[in-house]
Structures are given as C-alpha cells and as structure tokens.
C-alpha cells in the first residue's frame, strides 16, 4: 500500500532495534508493575532517538512526519507492547495542539513534547456515555475576568494520571470547545487506574477549575471536528499498533508450535493447527491492509471519506485482533492463559484495542449511517 523512503526504513530499523534490545519481556513486566506504569528513562531514550519529534511540525522542533510515520512507530510499539504513553502524548495530545492550537500554544507545548519533558492527555469521554464524543456533563462557564470555570468529569483518559497538561472537551455557551488544563490546577482530581494490558488511564473530575482565557484551543464552540479528527488519528494509530502486535504474536505462536512436542512430534506438524495459523495470517494481513489505508488517507481525505475509512479499518482490525488473540492463546494451550509467556500479554493488549475508541458494533453503526443515511 505505501512504500517507505530510505529514511523511513532506517528509522524503522533503529526504532525496532531499540525496542528489541532495551524492552524485553521482564523489563516490560517490571515497568508495568511500577507506580507510574511507564519508564521515564525509556521515554527519554525515545526522545533522544527523535521518535517523539518525528511527527511534530518542523517549526516546533519536529521532523514534520505524517500518518505513515505514526504507523511505523505504532507498529513497533505493538510489537514491543510498549507501555510508554506515545499515543496519548504525541498522537492525540500533540496532534490536537498542532491542529487546533494557536501559534503561541504550539510554541509553548510542542518543543517540550519533542524533548520528552512534557506529557499530555486528551479527555473526551464521559462516565456512563460509552463512546459518545460530545461533552454533556463537562461544562466551562466564562468568567468575568476573561477566563473559564471548568466543571464535570471525564473517564478513560489515557495517560491521565501522568500528564502535565490535559486537553479537555467541554460544553461552552457557543458549543463544544477544547481547553488546556494544567493537571496540577486546583479542583482537578485525578484517579489513575491500570487497564488489563498494563497501560494506565484515569477518571478525572473538575470542580470549578479556574483556567485562563488563553487556555482555549481553537475557537470557542468550534472544536467538534478537531475532536473527531483526534479520535480518528488515534484509531489509525491503534490499528497500526494492533498489526504490529498481531505479527509478533503470530511469530511467537509459530515458534511455540515448532518447538512444543506432544505425541512425539512438534504440534506444529499437525495440519489442523497449521490451517489455523494460516487463518490467523489471513486476518492479520487483511488488518494490515486496512490499517495502511487508514494511515495513508488520514490527512488528505475529505471528512466523510476519512470517517468511512477509519471506521471500516477499526472494524476489520478489531475483528482480526480478537480472532488472532484468542486463537494464539488456544494454540499455546495451558501456558497461553498464564502470565508467563508473551502470548497472553499480546492478547490482553489486543483486547483493549478492540474496545478502545469504539468497538466493532459502534463503528459498524457509524459506517452504516454513512453508507445509508
């Protein structure tokens, strides 16, 4: 679908080397069990390699890369089951700032993201509202002084517990707006939790949080499209991540079938298991096609075209993630349902990707509406 430039290929190789050599299974397990759930040392290494800067605008210490570069990074993240909050900080947070923020906001935030000294989180989902993106319970009232008073609650905020700055969607008098909130501001209550894949998210309450007039990202009341784009970009990114995870899971399962002996032979010699591996490969490659399509069209498609491609990709990738994950566990047998081998860790991440940013039913509905309504 897309061909990589020599530069992209070199970058991909050095990133994969970093993840392979520095991010082995035991290291990752220790990071997952730590308080923060990610490693600052590792984050700095990613910054040093230019991974964080890769897709940021050149005017703000970035390399000006696009969605294909995001694909490369996220695919490698999927292979390594990376716990560090690249998706939340770079793809979602910095992506929104670059797209919707003012020049001053970009200059204040993006170079710090590129350098690895600042982390972001995007808060768009609300408790009890499933995948709805329009804010209902979170409102920002204009203050006479010119700033805003923010109240409400958000949930499923990826990296919400560690982020220095939060980008929050809220209802304002003119519609849906985005506000940048200092995570340490008075009235911000963060409850961080671990997900089943070891990554962290948070539920965040805002109790009359006072923020300045310069906190508004883009025009007041006009943020709905930027939010939708940010979520679509996140979906394209997790599709690439899932493809990386599925490929690695296929390899490790294939290795297991070639070495695990029962009845005097490697169990991979049984045709019935070979066919199941073949089906897993089919699903993975179909998912890869759709993930590549989403990455290559994210930036230049019309809104409707983009929505259509992204929802279709999310359905295809989620179904493949479910199938490949469940089958890999089954083919491993008992050891597959333990914490001890990578297989169950890939399965858990793939399951979490399945339910993130809209599950299969959600995107079937969204795509169906685009096709028929």
């Amino acid at each position, binding site marked *: 679908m897309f061909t990589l430039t020599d530069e992209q290929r070199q970058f991909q190789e050095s990133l994969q080397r970093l993840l392979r050599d520095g991010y082995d299974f035991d290291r990752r397990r220790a990071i997952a069990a730590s308080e923060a759930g990610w490693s600052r040392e590792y984050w700095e290494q990613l910054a040093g390699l230019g991974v964080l800067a890769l897709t940021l605008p050149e005017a703000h210490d970035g390399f000006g890369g696009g969605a294909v570069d995001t694909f490369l990074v996220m695919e490698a993240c999927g292979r390594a089951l990376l716990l560090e909050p690249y998706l939340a900080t770079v793809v979602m947070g910095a992506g929104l700032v670059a797209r919707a923020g003012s020049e001053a906001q970009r200059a204040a935030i993006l170079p710090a993201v590129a350098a690895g000294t600042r982390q972001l989180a995007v808060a768009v989902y609300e408790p009890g509202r499933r995948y709805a993106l329009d804010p209902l319970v979170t409102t920002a009232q204009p203050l006479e002084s010119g700033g805003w008073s923010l109240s409400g609650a958000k949930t*499923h905020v990826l990296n919400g517990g560690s982020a220095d700055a939060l980008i929050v969607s809220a209802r304002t008098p003119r519609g849906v707006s985005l506000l940048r909130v200092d995570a340490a501001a008075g009235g911000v209550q963060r409850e961080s939790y671990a997900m089943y894949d070891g990554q962290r998210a948070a539920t965040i309450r805002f109790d009359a949080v006072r923020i300045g007039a310069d906190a508004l990202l883009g025009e007041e009341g006009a943020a709905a499209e930027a939010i939708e784009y940010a979520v679509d970009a996140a979906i394209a990114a997790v599709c690439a991540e899932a493809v990386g995870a599925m490929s690695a899971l296929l390899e490790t399962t294939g290795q297991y079938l070639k070495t695990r002996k029962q009845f005097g032979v490697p169990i991979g010699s049984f045709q019935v298991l070979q066919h199941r591996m073949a089906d897993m490969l089919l699903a993975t490659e179909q998912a890869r096609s759709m993930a590549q399509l989403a990455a290559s069209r994210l930036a230049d498609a019309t809104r409707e075209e983009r929505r259509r491609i992204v929802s279709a990709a999310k359905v295809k990738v989620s179904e493949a993630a479910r199938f490949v994950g469940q089958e890999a566990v089954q083919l491993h047998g008992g050891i597959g349902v333990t914490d001890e081998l990578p297989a169950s860790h890939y399965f858990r991440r793939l399951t979490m990707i399945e339910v993130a940013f809209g599950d299969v039913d959600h995107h079937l509905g969204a795509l169906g509406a685009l096709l028929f309504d």
Partner: protein
Amino acid sequence: MELRNKVVAGEHLTKEEYLRWHRLLFERGWIAPSWPRAFGGCEWSAVRQHIFEEECGLAGAPGIMPFGIRMVAPVIMKFGSAAQQQRFLPRILSGEDWWCQGYSEPGAGSDLASLRTRAERRGGHYLVNGQKTWTTLAHYADWIFCLVRTAREGRPQEGISFLLIDMRSPGVTVRPIIMLDGGHEVNEVWLENVEVPVANLVGEENKGWTYAKYLLGHERTGNAGTGFCRRWLGELKALARLQAGSDGRPLADDWRFRDRITRLEIELMALEVMNLRVLKLEEERHAPGPEASLLKIMGSDLQQALTELTMRALGHDGARAPQAATGRYFNFRKASIYAGSNEIQRNIIARHILGF
C-alpha cells in the same frame, strides 16, 4: 447470601468459603449426588443430579470442587481396596480432605500418556520424583491423586500407576502459576524423593491408565455448566437494560446488541436439550460415552461467548482492572483448554463417534 454475592461478582473464593458450602451440603446429605447410598451418597439418577447442579449454578452457589467427590472418589469406589474406601471416602464427603489432581506435566498435556513423574518401589513405599502442573487449588489441598510412571516397557499407557499422595509429605512443593486475569488458581507441584506407602496405590500397579480414563469420562460430563450459563445470561440481560449505548439509550434497545444476546439464548436452549439427551444415553448405557465431548465443546464455547459479550456490554469501561466481567472473560479462555482441550475433544469425536 454473602457467599452468593461473591460468586455472582466473580471473585475468587477462599478455601474456607468453598468449605462452608461443602459442609452445608454435607449436613443436608446432598454433597455426593452421584455416589451410591452405601458410601453415603444420594444415588440420584443422572437427570436428577443434572437438575440439582443446574439449580446450584443458577442460584450462584459456589462450585463443589470436582477433584474429591467427582474424580478420585469414583476411582476409589471402583478400583480401590476396602481399606482405602473406609479411609478416604468419609473424609471426602465431610470436606475434611481437600483433593487435587496430579495429571498434567510440563511435557505431558494433551499427550498425557507421555508423563514422566516416576515412582520406584522401595520395600514398603514408592519413591516419587517429578513435576505436575496446572494443579487446580493445590495450595488448598491435603491430598493429590497422581498418575506416575512405574514401568518403561511396552506402550507408554502400560507403565502408569495411580497413587494417592499426602500433600504434607516431605518433598512436596507447591508453586503458584499466575493466570492472565492476575488470579492464582493453578500451581506447579514438585515431587522430590517423596515417600508414598504402597498402601496408597489404587488398584494394580501399571493399570493406572485404565483408571485415569474412567475418571476423565466422569470429568467431561460435568463441564457443560448450563446452570451458571443461565445465570450469566440473566445477568447479561439485566446489564444490557442498565448500560447506556453511545446514543444514551439502553443497550437492550440496540438491535445489534440485542441480536447478539438472543443468539446466545438460542445456543443455551440447544445446549440444555443436548445435555439432557447425553444424560439419557448415559443412563441407558450406565456409563459416560464419547458424547460427553460434544458437551465439553458446546459448553466451553457458550461460556466463552457469554463472558465475552458481557465484557463487550461495558464498552471501554471494561478495560479498567479489576473488573468482574473482563476478568471472567480472560479467565474463561481456559475453558477450551482444560479437561482435554477442545482439539482433543474433536479427536475423540472423530475417532469414537465418526469412526475415523
């Protein structure tokens, strides 16, 4: 009541909690529905046992661990000595002895007959060395029934014996295996120079494979789990009425999700009838047959579909750990692997029903 709440919430039970329910049933005389009256059982028909189990599952009663009542006891009754029957069966009934199963080994899973734990005869005892794995609740157990190798000649099945081993014997070490939902149910059991009195051999030396197969037949019949599936389905329907979809309406009003639940309702109806048909066959034959493999596959498929859809009902809220529905989804991936993987069940169907 408090026990029921824990079961319904999908929490792991402590030994004492399992035993509380065990003793309640024991005092009512209902702890061993399948046993003959002579040994203190109910001697109920297979259908009556099934109804009892279904009701227990539906009510959210804790499971009665099968290892004593359903697994080792039938073997002791059929192949054990009178002394073994008198020694072990009353303590299994009362719950005084907790049993676990020493079958699988790291190198012997689906290919159970390749097991290597060896028992060497040394006068009045066997010296046992080896490693068992996937041993459910071995950390609660007083006794383990083990398949051990006592001879290397002939087919691998011919050198296996069935030994009863006191878990307190010197040389027995239990190590936990942590599962993908973070829970601790299964263990590795290491046996290093464990001395086991010859009196603890069941039946004849090198005939253990016959006893093991007898036991496995009993194990599979219990695995359809229609009672607790019916309870899970009820819980899922209740959840779908409460849980809002992205449009704010309950999930139960979303035809896409409703269809998914409805399909599982049909699956469960079919499984319930299937279960009764297999039980009837067993009653006529007075023995479990290969049809039990059908129940194992269908039951585990349905359990997995139900736990999966319940997790799905939560949307991304299900990602937050710990979460009963998501934990149960991950936990029940084991259902198509344990007690003879579904691949092995299909082999049994192909060979013993289809005649390949």
